[in-house]
């Protein structure tokens, strides 16, 4: 066991971890942050996506010890003050059904919009190509992002 100081959603948290523990398990089981979900444990599905210094990563493929010294953001952090415009748009467009993949997709698109405030449909598709959604057929997710980023909004 090693003590880590992790910066999660702009707060410093102390946690004891084994060197082989993955970030996903530490966030969920030791820090009580439950929005990153487990879907495959091998980086295929993207449900465990978190932002590491603003970059979307799969927390099932990151060791907790590797995250020390980096800033970790989950959907809890994004929603802390008020919902982001992206989240509001997802609500308006009924963009999710079961909601299990939603936290991961919100973070993947958050990263995209930081880099490309007006993405093309192709860029949107590519940004979430690693986040599987079995319910929606993705179309309502595209619609919400396209609507949000069109024109002067």
């Amino acid at each position, binding site marked *: 066991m090693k003590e880590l100081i992790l910066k999660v959603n702009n707060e410093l948290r102390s946690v004891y971890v084994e060197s082989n523990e993955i970030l996903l398990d530490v966030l969920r089981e030791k820090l009580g942050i439950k929005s990153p*979900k487990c879907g495959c444990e091998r980086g295929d599905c993207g449900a465990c996506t978190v932002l590491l210094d603003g970059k979307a990563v799969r927390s099932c493929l990151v060791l907790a010890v590797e995250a020390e010294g980096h800033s970790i953001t989950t959907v809890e952090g994004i929603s802390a003050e008020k919902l982001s415009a992206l989240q509001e748009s997802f609500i308006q467009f009924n963009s999710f059904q079961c909601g299990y993949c939603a936290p991961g997709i919100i973070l993947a698109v958050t990263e995209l919009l930081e880099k490309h405030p007006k993405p093309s449909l192709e860029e949107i598709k590519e940004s979430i190509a690693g986040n599987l959604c079995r319910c929606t057929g993705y179309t309502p997710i595209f619609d919400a992002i396209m609507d949000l980023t069109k024109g002067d909004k």
Partner: protein
Amino acid sequence: MKDYKYIGTDVTRIDALEKISGAAIYGDDIDFGANLLHAELVQSTMAHAIIKSIDISEALKVKGVYKIFTGKDFPYKFGLYMKDRYIFAQDKVRFVGEQIAAVIAFSPGAAKRAAELVKVEYEALPAVLDQMEALKDDTALLHPELADYPHVPWFFPKPGTNIAHWRKTRKGDLDKGFSEADFILEDTYQVPRYAHCAIETHVAVGKFDHSGRLTVWSSSQSPHTQRHLFAEALGLSHKDVRVIAPHVGGGFGGKAGVTMEIIPAALATKLKGYAVKLRYSREQEFINTYQRLGVVAKIKMGVKKDGTITALDHKIYWDAGAYVEYGANVVNAVGLSAIGPYRIHNVSIDSVCVYTNLPPGGAYRGFGYSEMLFGLESHITRIANELGLDQIEFRRKNAIKAGDLTAYGAKMNPNGLIECIDKVQQAIEWGKKPSSNDPTKVIGQGFSLFWKAPAMPPNASSSAFLKFNEDATINLIISGMDIGQGYQTVMAQIAAEILSVPPGKIRVETPDTDRNPYEWQTVASHITWSSGNAVKKAALDAREQILSLINRVYHYPIDELYLEDEAVKCQTDPAFLLPLKNFVVDGIMTRDGTFKGGPINARGMFMPEFSSTNGDPETSQGGHPNVHYTVGAAALNLEIDRETGKMRVLKAALAIDAGKALNPDLVRGQITGGLLQGLATVLYEDMRYNDKGKLLNPNFTDYKIPTSMDVPDEIIPIIVEVPQPDGPFGARGIGEHTMLPAAPMIANAVEDALGIRIKEMPITAEKVALAVLNKDKQ
């Protein structure tokens, strides 16, 4: 058309905020504290074998291991429609992956390490991996005790064979029908097994407390059915079994009934005071929940020159797996409905449920109709082409209408099938397919009809409680599951419409069987219809209580009172307006200072009292096994690269008769989502087994489900509304249906583009490229 305030409007989901903010709690998100134990399964490596011995001695030495249980500890059978399954394998294993033992440990890692050290000694039996092999006389029997298995009265197992159920449907005179035909086409179609691939794997936690009460937290479509089966199998009273179902991360039929949930439920009874969790890995999710059944379908259809279908002989052989307690009802449902949405007078259907040494088949969105329609709708297009008829005209001519008799002799419900056909034909611009500028690419058009009825026991019911709060917000207490389809939102809309309270002021929670009233299961696309009727009745009950109170206090006649904008108003006295929040809990103060009324609590219940399974076993004539059918049509333009076989859906149109779309945006959501799931089964997915019955692709690297890059370029969702007479505001279910036409549409479009008919799913790029090569060689 009636003017509604909330019904038929695009209300945003009432669960959206929870799900979008990360607040929604799913099964694996619940904390259980220090007394949580973790279970890991020891699973069979053999497809069919006698268990000679189980050695747990090495496993018990692993640090952190608490106990190990095997089949001896739980000699209990269970099953939804047929009790052919054990909680743990007893003397035999019947598929690779079947649970033999469970290691209980204080950490998941210790449980997993120890499970690998449990040594099982087997004596191999011949493995039966194909349903057609399983039907041969000299094949090994999977269930020699079949005659002793309790089952519902509408199943007809054949002891001494591998046939678990044989649904026979006979109508008219088949020989006469074929003798009247000018053309007969006979062929065989095959469909492999598929996996649901909900992104959340199954998880369940059981806790048996020191007072003898069992609580199970379960990612489930069926909390009440689970409670019932747990109570039955474990010999507990229903009052002492409680199932709590949090948000579900996708179901698609995979979380219907009972599969792995019974394991932690049973383990808990021997681990008093602890909570014990079983969470499936993705690999276990593929191997040991339900799978969609595999199919070999033999179709013989006779047609007159003018396009009238005269006879259909449809034989469907289902690879139902090692246990068929739920899967046999898939076979049953299709055995009643394998005429498709057509008027055919001379019919013979044999739908045969066959045991194989593969994982148990069960409910999967579409409940067998996708598998059946792949063959039938391929066949329909081929016959039209052979006769030189337009395939849409051919379908329109034979399309079933309200009042026509189904294969089992009941009358078809009102439906908008012709309107669906017309609208899809128009939307896809049938006959005017685009051409590609790229010489390696060709474009084909495909068309398909679809239909499906809920498959459920005749007494499957729904119920609802509704209670007002002080501020006239509402808690609607129901037990269907929002598995993503938008159930909670639509139920809130129904109550909102009747009580004039906006849906956003109605809270619908996920169920707890101790507090929420009975619901059969969230399956069969019946929940909008059935639970919707119960909610409507509960809301009407509340309204009646409210209006009666106003009548008692203010003496306005009840038929002059109405609800509008969260208040009671009176038609004959425009000055009268009493906000609901003034009295729905606290009552109304009268002149002498006393109060009348009190909290408004209401209830509603629905059971389809006209349904029955009393059909003749040899013909299926006589009963009323299906409550109604939902119908529709779909078409697409498919671009195919002749060199690589890669296919791209340029445009797809799907029309469905929702009866009344209570929330059109949610219906459109089912269309875009279901269509892609259907396209995936034909273009990308299939479960590959080796010759030992081991699944070769139990992960998302090797079993490809669609990503955002695989979406059709354009989808045109079309809603048709021919009201369902007994539906809430005319609604009927649409959730499963949207994936039904995908596979035959692709097969039909491939033939249109390339002149190649593919009769075995899936139709992958590889298969198409090879077929083109073969054709070019000839």
